[in-house]
């Protein structure tokens, strides 16, 4: 049925059915980042139900989502909301309409690249590259003196033992995105 298109698509991709949602709002109530979202989690559930795919893929909700899983843990209908957010990220990743989404996506990719190269995040390198890429080279410069003097950030990267195993995990993980 046409009326359930988006709901069915989400169900197929994530396994979660928004049809069970009674709009109680417990997900929104427990979400640590809801205050910054343009559509809060319970509204996202309703938008899926109302077939508002185009509207939803422009939202920043699932990009701000911290994947803390509080929503999924507390939902009285056992809907895996965090999984739905992940599914929406994947659906939106191709077109990347949302402006903030592009930036967040870049950070995620730099983060993963760093892990692939060293086995753990080379914070200095990642932040510098990200800030340059997004055209804000001086964004975090004011933090540098305090971070260095307190030993919170290293000048050089650290490579882990077993880096080839980490690379293998990332390679295997890529299979799921295809």
């Amino acid at each position, binding site marked *: 049925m046409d009326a359930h298109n988006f709901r069915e698509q989400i169900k197929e991709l994530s396994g979660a059915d928004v049809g069970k949602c009674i709009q109680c709002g*417990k*997900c*929104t*109530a427990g*979400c640590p980042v*809801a205050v910054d979202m343009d559509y809060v989690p*319970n509204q996202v559930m309703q938008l899926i139900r109302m077939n508002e795919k185009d509207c939803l893929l422009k939202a920043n909700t699932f990009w701000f989502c911290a994947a803390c899983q509080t929503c999924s843990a507390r939902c009285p209908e056992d809907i895996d909301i965090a999984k739905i957010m992940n599914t929406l990220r994947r659906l939106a990743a191709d077109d990347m309409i949302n402006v903030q989404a592009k930036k967040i996506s870049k950070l995620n990719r730099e983060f993963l690249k760093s892990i692939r190269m060293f086995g753990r995040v080379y914070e200095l390198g990642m932040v510098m590259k990200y800030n340059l890429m997004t055209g804000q080279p001086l964004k975090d410069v004011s933090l540098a003196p305090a971070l260095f003097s307190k030993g919170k950030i290293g000048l050089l990267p650290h490579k882990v033992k077993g880096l080839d195993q980490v690379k293998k995990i990332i390679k295997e993980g890529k299979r799921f995105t295809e």
Partner: protein
Amino acid sequence: MTESSQDEKITLLTYAEIEEVKGFVGNYDVTIRKKARSVDLVKCTGCGECKQKCPKKVPSEFDMVLGTRKAIYTPFTQAVPNVPVIDRECCLYFTKGKCQICSKVCPAGAVDYEQKDELITEKFGAIVVATGFDQFDWTVYGEYGGGRIKNIVTGLHIERMLETSGPTGGHIIRPSDGKEAKVVVFVQCAGSRDEAKGKPYCSRVCCMYTAKHALLLKDHQPDSQAYVFYIDIRAGGKNYEEFTKKVQRDHGAVYIRGRVSKIYEKGDKLVVCGADTLTGKPVKIEADLVVLATAMVPQADATALAQKLNIPYDKHGFYTEVHPKLQPVASVTKGIFLTGACQFPRDIPDTVAMSGAAAVGVCGIFSQDEMSIEPRIACVDTERCVSCFNCLQVCPFNAIVQQEIDGKTYAYVQESLCTGCGNCASTCRVRAITVRGFTDEQLYAQIKAALN
């Protein structure tokens, strides 16, 4: 309650339990255990001296542990009969062999430490079950403190607090420090409408009693503020909708549509993290007191009683009616009627109506010498019966008994108990027992016709 205790046609047996039920509609033999109060019902005048002088205090269950009672006590002031009972688990005489002050001060000599439980067996024609409800154990919600936070209470606590002669003198207070609560947050659906950790059903009464509490809070303490977190307001009764509207319009209660995700302590206040789904914003409120509207569940021993009475119940423990719409008051077992919250969460007007229906149902049975029943019940062909009595063991209604014919025993189905469920028919190995109207031949004919 007092009226019923004084009516000459009613015998009130309090502090008593059903021990065993035998028989069938019109002919029940019920064994009742009259538990030992340790006080003589006839001699006691209800003067209350024993309660006053008893030195042992324990938390009062009736007052939701907000107050205390004595070891010799009546559960509440208006209890009928006004005769106390000794709680032998905490009484100093029964636990340590000391004290005995109550028997010394009793002017009527009514205290009897040697009193024992008494078993009586009497005949009854019908049974009406009205065992009521209990509160859901909401401490499963770790996000609401799991029972560790003192200033999170339930609707029943507020009821006790509101009573002027109750444990807090009519003031709504914080249990942690006894101070009057100024900001009170009411959380509806705590345990109801929750398939994950609670009960899936709606407990029906909470929207209304929460509105009542919000109104009375403002009434008693004009400088207080009530916030009510709800998902839906269920006000489907006479004047109910107008009442909930009035509470918001005239008594200052703020209603917020959204479930509460977490409640935690911050200093001596409570932070309630909820949401307003209508504006799409998370909402945080600092409260003095949080009141949870807990789900209604059957009594803890509801299923044990059902086994004694041979009445079916559903997966939540609520007793099953014959038909949810057309026969909501009769249990599947003939002669046993249900009323009130033991059948499903229910408010007072509906319970009173149901009780009237149950009473009429009983009168209907008693007004006839004979009863007509559904003919679709089981019967035994004694020519085939091999007396294995497997059918007797699988019958959920204990309808099958052993019958002696010419020196041999066969299975026999008591018609008034049989409900035609068919368990016996499917168990019998020699096809000796069948349900009238559902013989194997009839079923085969139906299948053949359907397959053609």
